[in-house]
């Protein structure tokens, strides 16, 4: 009997010991889990919609109140224009060249050949360009160069006063894709002549063309410039056919004057 009691006690002791040793969490401090934060997925729009923190809100309201008491005239221009300033950050020349190379690659004439399929006029507006997929991806790096390309043309002193806010790559590509579909290139033009038609547009906020001006208008009626005239006319037809142009919904002041440079050499070389 005693023997059984001793065995049972010993057995229980062993079980208690194993249980104690095999439950390490009893020895450790509990894991410090971070508090759960609920995340709301929102669509990013041009204007931020994040509410002010209560404390900050109070301070801003206080300042506004003070300003309203003091200022009688119009308020300052909207701040969102200033927010677009980072686009103008200059890049080193090396980077510009690199991005230019990428751009050239994108316009590879070999790729264009695949497009030389006869498409009905009625499908033209819905033309999907597989070569443009890459261009639709927002590459901020390329965007910087685009902006820089235009800013390089002005002097340093002018540069300070110019608001560098060109079209973003997405905006530019949307516009390009629209015009690509509308521009029927006159295939009889020689590919080895320098034919560049520059057209300056004045646009309404909805993209309708108010006024256009061919920058080298004198060439239109010059003798021996028949090819230029044909190209310029085709470019004007494209603009008329495309309007209203696919322009950004915001920042009208930026793009109300726009210059389109029509160059068909790449396509004509085939």
């Amino acid at each position, binding site marked *: 009997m005693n023997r059984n009691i001793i065995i049972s006690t010993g057995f229980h002791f062993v079980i208690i010991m194993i249980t104690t040793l095999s439950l390490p969490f009893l020895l450790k401090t509990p894991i410090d889990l971070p508090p759960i934060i609920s995340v709301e997925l929102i669509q990013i729009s041009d204007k931020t919609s994040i509410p002010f923190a209560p404390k900050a809100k109070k301070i801003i309201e206080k300042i506004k109140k003070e300003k309203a008491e003091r200022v009688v005239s119009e308020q300052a221009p909207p701040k969102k224009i200033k927010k677009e300033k980072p686009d103008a950050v200059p890049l080193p020349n090396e980077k510009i060249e690199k991005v230019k190379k990428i751009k050239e690659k994108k*316009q590879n004439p070999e790729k264009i050949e695949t497009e030389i399929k*006869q498409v009905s006029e009625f499908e033209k507006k819905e033309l999907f360009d597989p070569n443009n997929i890459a261009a639709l991806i927002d590459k901020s790096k390329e965007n910087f160069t685009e902006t820089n390309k235009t800013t390089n043309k002005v002097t340093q002193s002018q540069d300070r006063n110019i608001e560098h806010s060109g079209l973003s790559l997405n905006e530019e590509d949307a516009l390009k894709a629209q015009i690509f579909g509308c*521009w029927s290139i006159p295939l*009889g033009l020689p590919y080895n002549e320098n034919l560049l038609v520059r057209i300056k547009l004045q646009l309404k906020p909805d993209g309708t063309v108010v006024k256009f001006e061919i920058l080298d208008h004198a060439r239109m009626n010059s003798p021996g410039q028949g090819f230029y005239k044909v190209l310029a006319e085709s470019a004007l037809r494209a603009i008329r*056919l495309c309007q209203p142009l696919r322009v950004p919904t915001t920042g009208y002041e930026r793009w109300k004057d*726009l210059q389109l440079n029509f*160059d068909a050499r790449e396509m004509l070389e085939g």
Partner: protein
Amino acid sequence: MKFLKILTILLLIQFKAYALIEVDITRGNLSPLPVAVSPLSSDKKSITEFEKILNVKDLGSEISIIVENNLRQSGLFNPLEKDAFLQKPDIAHFKPRFEDWKLIKAQALITGKVEIIDEKLRVEFRLWDVLAAKEMLAIAFTTVPTNWRRVGHIITDKVYERLTGEKGYFDTRLIYVSEEGPKTKRIKKLAIMDQDGFNLKYLTLGNELVLTPRFNPTNQMVTYLSYFRNLPRVYLLDIETGMQEVVGDFAGMTFAPRFSPDGKKIIMSFAKDGNSDIYTMDLENRVVERITNHPSIDTSPSYSPDGKYICFNSDRSGYQQIYVMKSDGSSVKRISFGNGIYGTPVWSPRGDLIAFTKLHKGKFYIGVMRTDGKGERLLTENFYQEAPSWSPNGRVLVFYRETKTDDKGEGFSAKLWSIDLTGYNERQVPTKTDASDPSWSSLLSN
């Protein structure tokens, strides 16, 4: 002091300005331009005259159909269905309602009027830019009524030139060898027709074998090769008068005669003692000049449009390849280096390209390369095809293609085909019989 203060303040003020945004448009679509070709209007009196003189009921419609077909064949235009037109031809010619034409997606509009005045056909037509709502071209001309098909071609040429920037090629003719009968007993006749297949005429009776007819680029003269007593002879034929003459009797074999760009010389290859070289003959004094002197076989010479260079075919490298030399035979340079055998080089009237036939791995190709041999592009591939000839504007090539007529590969059919420089617009040229060796004339009217 006050002035300085104001100046300082002005300098400190930041004037905001925006840089002009520039967007480069380097690509467009290559789909055909939608064009509306309104039937040419006519008055009642003229309609009666058309029926009486030409036995054609509605000449205005017929001419507009010619224009439509030509534009469609070019591959660059898409003539719209006439059923969709909202405006009557006579009113459209006077003042088009551009909104109506925009509605049917037309970008250009052709209107016109045709009438008989003093037994002559008077035609006027206008080309309108529908989107800009303005007239682009207005031309009127008179001709003999029997030329009514040419009227359609001339209108097309003018429209084509105004919209594409290069000369047209519609008011032209094709000369070719018409073939009939089994392959062992083939009857070959010289035939000429408009580029669209109409107005066919046979120039020889078919008693003798005829080969390689070529147009003189400056007039309506043709040179061709014909066998007389089993010996080839080079002939000259005036299409207008039907007069024919033998250029010369040569002791050996002559091949592939072709005119110089000024039409004053003939260049050909001439075989003697198993060696073929290139010669020219002055058509005024019949003086023959040897251009190449090489133990290899030199054939198929063709002048550049300025007459300064000649491209030709030679096997001097071991295989048949294309060479270019100065017109006096100096500075010979090989330009074709691709795989396969190259033949029948023809210099483009624009001067920028050389068309050729290429044989590679049992297939025949028609292609083009630049005059330095770079930028080779094969436009079309088939079982058997050769002899390309350029349209006068250097945009389209006509050639002949032989196809098997049954699954066993027995029998064959030779037809004329055309292809443009894009390589996408390939079409069969309608001929009544089998056809080979085509040659494209220059524009009949300039």
